[in-house]
């Protein structure tokens, strides 16, 4: 995976993205605007994070899941 590997380590873009979703629920466009990441990269990362159950989608808005919070916390401790 590009944004999170099998050991649960987040890529810099993945960490940035998950970190922004830990603060508030955002749309794809919001995430792209806030992070400066191109929209294609945001969509690709969100898809991977949804598959890894790190985030939840509700009404076209994305928010961090409990599992996502744990992974983000672990990555923040590892840095």
């Amino acid at each position, binding site marked *: *995976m*590009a*944004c999170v590997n099998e050991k649960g380590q987040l890529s810099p873009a993945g960490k940035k993205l998950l970190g922004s979703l830990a603060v508030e629920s955002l749309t794809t466009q919001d995430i792209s605007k806030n992070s400066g990441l*191109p*929209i*294609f*990269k945001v*969509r*690709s*990362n969100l*898809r*991977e994070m949804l598959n890894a159950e790190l985030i939840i989608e509700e009404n076209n808005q994305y928010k961090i899941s409990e599992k996502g919070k744990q992974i983000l916390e672990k990555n923040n401790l590892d840095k």
Partner: protein
Amino acid sequence: MIENNVTNEVKSLPRIGSVAPEFEAATSQGTLRLSDYKGSWLVLFSHPADFTPVCTSEFIGFQEIYPQLREMNTELLGLSVDSVSSHVAWIRNVQEKFGVTLEFPIIADLNKEVAQKYGMIMPEESSTETSRAVFVIDDKQIVRAIIYYPLSTGRNMQEILRLVKALQATDEHNIATPANWQEGDKVLVPPATTDELANERMNDDSIECIDWYYCTKKL
């Protein structure tokens, strides 16, 4: 079509004006789908192989125009019949030897799935490599322009940039662009479709007409 017990599926290749075929592919920046690009323009291009001289010169050229393309809401996506590892090694080599960081993703199309969908392989030239194809796909995922170059000839980056600018100007202003048009040059007003409109046009002070069918204006 079935001939001699061999099934040959006849596929229609993308044409200008058609919806660009969807794909999901491994790239040097993770798995990407064409639909990930919805809302932005895309220059999807193929090259014959990593670690070859013409392709290296082209990738450096593509990287040079990438910031300008991004300002025009346009992304770049390369493709060749090489592995992700090969792409990553080549990207690192270009960085090391030429000091250029290739920032756009490259599809690793080892099974030629995307190349075949887009007609990027010219079997008479090479059955194992993709030719130098360029597909300009707009923000609604419609194919707007197609360019093919052979293996031996590197593409002109300024022409690709000019093409995207011209297509976007056409969409924004409902105009056409003449031969060798560059940004800032006069554009062509679409020809009048009725005699009445032709008369109106000849008396319109906001445009310059050589004759009713050839009128230009500044944007």
